[in-house]
């Protein structure tokens, strides 16, 4: 498979079935860039993100687990 466009060209927008949300796209792409970079680097900050934001652990808990503070994305 060949990837053609990263962003739907304006000329195709009228024929696209899914309307794009530029603001939401910008925010997602900003967060996704950081998340992917952390995953690629096996950065434990990614673990801290989920441990803190989803499982409610404090920075002290994270430190006890040998993890860095949760990053602000």
């Amino acid at each position: 498979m060949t990837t053609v466009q990263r962003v739907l060209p304006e000329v195709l927008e009228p024929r696209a079935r899914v309307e794009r949300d530029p603001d939401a796209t910008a925010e997602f792409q900003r967060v996704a860039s950081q998340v992917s970079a952390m995953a690629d680097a096996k950065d434990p900050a990614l673990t801290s993100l989920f441990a803190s934001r989803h499982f409610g652990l404090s920075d002290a808990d994270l430190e006890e687990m040998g993890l860095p503070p949760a990053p602000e994305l």
Partner: protein
Amino acid sequence: MTDRWPCVTARCLLEDIGEPLPDPSSQRRADVDHPLVRELCRLAPTTPQGQKPILSLQSEGLFAFRVQYSQLRGCTWHDGNTEVVWLLASLLRKDGDPDDAYEEFSKLHAAGKLVPTQRDEVAAALERLFHDEVPRLAEKVVDAVETALANPDSKVDVAADALVPVTVRVEAIEVEDEGLAEIVVAFFRTNTLDHTVALALPTLVLDHAAAKLGLPRARDWEVGKGFAEFPQAAATYVTIVEFGDATFPVFGQ
């Protein structure tokens, strides 16, 4: 969540086995090279079948079972709520000595140091998320995208029995006369997620799937402003591919 997950308490790993705590997203505690941890992994699917109870702990209300290798003795405990099978301790058998493994197990339990802590439970949940649930959901998304591309009328739903529950619907939509297809991956969430986690989770799933399918990475996908056919979707992600020289059947071609 049905499969049992083997894990080791932090106290056991640090104090008994002498290994540092790994980052749960990179390595499972059960991947540590240690004879009793290997036994834990072997026994976890069927525990406590074939294991003897540790009566001194069971009399205290902890239904722990023996695991052994040479002079090493350990105790396992199956948490039926989370389906995690824990290795709680690994110590030496010194029959008759006050620091015999079974004596120490009782002392640790009396001191409240034997059972998993909340941090242990989160570590096991994180391991499961990164090593099992995200890859498994991503594989389902890969299959769904391939099916959707091969069958343009199909709408493939993927249910994830995950700690972070999501349902994914995948569609491939031909952009008429341009030889292009929009691949739509719409995430339905059954609970309220933290906003950043709600963006990070699809990132991990899309990156896994994209690597298998040769699609752009998550950071290059666009976000849809609703999707008329799936108005209940919490988030809709879209990318564009050319299907003229696709490596798998597309739209029946």
